């Protein structure tokens, strides 16, 4: 197997600048939305005192979860010593940082007081998993940054495995923290489950790899570099395992809830009577997110079609967004049970199913998270030697031509 060279992209074409311009428009849209929301107050959004977290959180948590998953390609190369993935490691690490930056930006811009970000950085309540996450997120930038230095600078190369292992452990802890944001909510029947943390880790493997495959395919196609089917097939097979794992965790989570009489109400809401939430669960999370990607990956008719892995990855990411919507919005839409067994009503919507319709500003803010992540990747591949010159089979497949 020949040594694979990495080179910056040219980045002078009209298409490149058009892409950056388009992403810039979305980013400006997000910033403008933030200004509009903060100036008027959150009443101009679809968020309420019932649904306190809306689509900005759906997008932010998706991107943060995908960020840790995107790092896995690099981890497989350095921690598990699968050399075939090594050429992809720098892109994997940069994409992880970019996705995290996009997710955190949306999260911060949706705060009631985003101007108080410095307060969040200087006042810590160490009992709060949110406060821990602030450390985990900033630490992720530091640890993955260090890991990148070992990849890009020859002097630190001997420490690559060590840095990669640290980054791998860090990402597991980070996603445990993200899942625990929901797992620790004792009062909400849709959450309050220890499975949330490991389930989010498995989700992250699927969403992160899906995002990675899409970025890899797009960047190679747009720069005219060759990406052979050998590597894509391996990534596709890996995606299949992660999607199946996500499906499994989802089934276990809901079956466990269904077994408990106390939670049958919230399960009936999510799985049967929840209107948009129920549709998003079955059509979005299950069909688009699990069944269709698995069919594309494992059905002989489709699996070797050149676009099948990318379509599967796109469906996995779309299903991931649906899952986050069902988890975050659905979990809040079902009312808190203050008096179990009793029918409750009040002017504050006790006992009522809560509705949520995202407004344009909050939707634009959410979309800007993707734009921020992609813009960072687009700039990074121009500035650094991140993308391999070629990933044709003769350079990646050790058995090529045998």
């Amino acid at each position, binding site marked *: 197997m020949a040594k694979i060279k990495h080179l910056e992209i040219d980045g002078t074409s009209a298409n490149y600048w058009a892409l950056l311009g388009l992403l810039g428009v979305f980013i400006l849209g997000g910033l403008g939305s933030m200004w509009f929301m903060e100036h008027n107050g959150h*009443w101009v959004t679809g968020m309420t*005192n019932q649904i306190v977290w809306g689509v900005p959180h759906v997008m932010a948590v998706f991107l943060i979860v995908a960020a840790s998953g995107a790092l896995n390609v690099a981890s497989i190369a350095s921690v598990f010593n699968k050399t075939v993935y090594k050429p992809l490691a720098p892109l994997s690490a940069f994409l992880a940082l970019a996705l995290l930056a996009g997710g955190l930006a949306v999260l911060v811009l949706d705060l*009631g007081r985003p101007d108080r970000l410095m307060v969040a950085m200087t006042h810590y309540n160490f009992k*709060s998993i949110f406060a821990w996450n602030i450390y985990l997120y900033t630490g992720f930038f530091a640890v993955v940054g260090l890991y990148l230095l070992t990849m890009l600078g020859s002097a630190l190369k001997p420490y690559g495995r060590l840095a990669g292992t640290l980054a791998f452990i860090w990402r597991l802890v980070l996603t445990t923290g993200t899942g625990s944001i929901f797992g620790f909510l*004792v*009062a909400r029947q849709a959450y309050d489950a220890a499975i949330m943390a490991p389930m989010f880790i498995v989700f992250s493997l699927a969403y992160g790899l899906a995002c990675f495959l899409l970025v890899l395919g797009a960047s190679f196609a747009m720069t005219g570099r060759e990406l052979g089917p050998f590597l894509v097939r391996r990534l596709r097979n890996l995606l299949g395992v992660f999607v199946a794992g996500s499906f499994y965790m989802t089934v276990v989570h809901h079956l466990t809830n269904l077994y408990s009489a106390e939670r049958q109400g919230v399960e009936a809401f999510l799985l049967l009577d929840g209107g948009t939430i129920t549709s998003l669960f079955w059509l979005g999370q299950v069909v688009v997110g699990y069944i269709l990607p698995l069919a594309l990956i494992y059905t002989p008719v489709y699996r070797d079609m050149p676009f099948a892995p990318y379509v599967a990855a796109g469906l996995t990411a779309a299903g991931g967004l649906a899952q986050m919507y069902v988890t975050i919005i659905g979990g809040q839409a079902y009312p808190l049970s203050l008096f179990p067994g009793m029918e409750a009503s009040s002017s504050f919507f006790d006992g009522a199913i809560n509705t949520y319709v995202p407004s344009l500003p909050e939707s634009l803010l959410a979309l800007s998270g993707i734009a921020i992540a992609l813009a960072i990747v687009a700039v990074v591949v121009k500035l650094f030697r991140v993308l391999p010159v070629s990933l044709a089979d003769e350079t990646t497949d050790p058995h090529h031509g045998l």
Partner: protein
Amino acid sequence: MTELTRRQILATGAAIALAPGLTLIAPAHAKNAEDPASAQNRWGLLIDAAKCAKGCTSCVDACKAEQGWSSQGRPQTDPQWIRKIALRDPSSGRESSLPVMCQHCAEPPCAAVCPTGASFKRADGIVLVDRHICIGCRYCMMACPYKARSFVHEDVHGQRPHMPRGKGTVEGCTLCVHRVDEGRLPACVEKCPEGAMLFGDLNDPASPIAQRIAAETTTRIRQDLGLSPAVHYQGV
């Protein structure tokens, strides 16, 4: 002889003059506003749902007037520090009505999850939000089992000097901490026409609230969560 402050005289007078069941800060516990809250006290409420009249919103109106929050005609985003909940037991058809506000838990989940420590519990058990360091993340609202908190969705008007509020931060019942510190009753308790709300020191075995809780059957909302709320109910 130590000179009595106006506050102490008021508290003592209230203890003597008001009808049994309405007063409840023993003079020994009334404190100067500048003194720190003490863990010797655990302020709480006992609410008798059997006395709480359906449709009566005196406690809610009193809270609005005292704390300066109001409706903007947008029920989904308007704040509600206290609300009346109508309950119906589907098996028996029995109906009841009761006010619900921050339950001032001994183990408040809002304070546990707050990343900056803006949500906190005073030594005397009153759970508050420090508006200066609340970043408006709303995680406390996700964590509160009682739906006791509101996010301020728009500009605020008619703020009271004792209760600064701010768009973009979270707020909720303060148990009228400004009144309690002056040895006065919370506004909701004072204005309840049925005498359904009793305020006092749960830590003081001689206080009427502690004595009634010791002698009568009371319950707390979602006791199963083990948060030990300071608001007790009976007749639910």
